[in-house]
């Protein structure tokens, strides 16, 4: 019950893209990078993680399955945000 799934506040950030505020929060459930992402629009929240696919380099994927394209797009936006704000 008392397990904290989320990291602390400094592991959260928001940015604007395509007129929508995207709020990202890092999750403390894996040694790898996992984000819980919510939107100011009606889009459903999504969890994305880096995955090591066989036929390409590591890419972003949705957890659970079913929203691969969104995951890849959001992952790219997050990487872009982090690379310019670190």
């Amino acid at each position, binding site marked *: *019950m*008392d*397990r*904290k*799934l*989320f990291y*602390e*506040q400094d592991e959260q950030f*928001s940015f604007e893209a395509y007129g*929508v*505020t*995207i*709020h990202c*929060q890092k*999750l403390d*459930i*894996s040694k*790898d990078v*996992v984000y*819980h992402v*919510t*939107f*100011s*629009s*009606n889009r459903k*929240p999504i*969890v994305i*993680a880096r*995955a*090591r*696919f*066989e*036929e*390409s380099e590591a*890419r972003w*994927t*949705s*957890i*659970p*399955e*079913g*929203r*691969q394209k969104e*995951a890849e797009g959001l992952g790219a936006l997050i990487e872009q945000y982090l690379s310019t704000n670190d």
Partner: protein
Amino acid sequence: MCYYNAQKVTHAEFLRLKGIEKTLKEHDFFTRYVIVGFDFGQTTVLKPIEGIEDFEIVQMEWGFLPDSLKWPFIETREDAFKIRRGYTDARGKFVQPLNFLNAVSEELLIRNKVYREAALHRRCIIPSSGFYDWRHIFPLNKRTGQPLKTAVKYPYRVMVKNKEVFWMAGIWQQWTDADTGETVDTCAVVTTEANLVMSQIHNSKKRMPTMLTDDLAWEWMFGKLDEKRISEIARWQIPWQDLTYYTLAKDFLNSGDPIKEVVYPDLPPIDIPGGESKTPQGQMELFS
């Protein structure tokens, strides 16, 4: 070789991703700030294990579905959808929705009512880090000075002071879809008369969830309770001094940060002895 999201991955990677998936599922409550009752989605419930003083943490569908052999005879998902959303009957009359999200404590044990058996035998606890209700304020007509007919609705987030998670009394019922054989556990939050603070926040209905102390929550789940005691706990009112609250954006349900405090300068404060005193936003947050 396995596939995840239609991409080829190794067995080890597949297991890792499924492991994250399982963890997320188990902690779904913690990944969502806002669970909207009218979505009839899953919520986390502490479900007692029969015969021992222990419980499982499970996901249940919020929106009690009564035994299909009893009124209102919800046998299939289609029936459930109709009953929950309302529908037009064969005579063209609109039948009002019955959502069964909240179980009114004062009616819990009335014979032949839908909640009685669950209240007697299937009590549970619904943990929460905060719930939401709307305060209705009727602005005055500038010309006549009379209140307008349409209220302005201000959403509030309500929490229990010094508790990251608090306990709401609940009842649950297993339900089976007659079409598919799908079986789900469904639940309702028990509600009681609003206390001083909640009667001003939820001023349209003057009700609130039955928020229990640790001891009462334990008794609700594991006590061998007679009807009198079930009724007493179900109606229990948390003291208004134990609550803390703040206002949210009017469109908070669609917000990227739904629990962010938004102050409305024109909104009259909640009238409590000694004046309104609030916990600064963030102090009570589960993840701060």
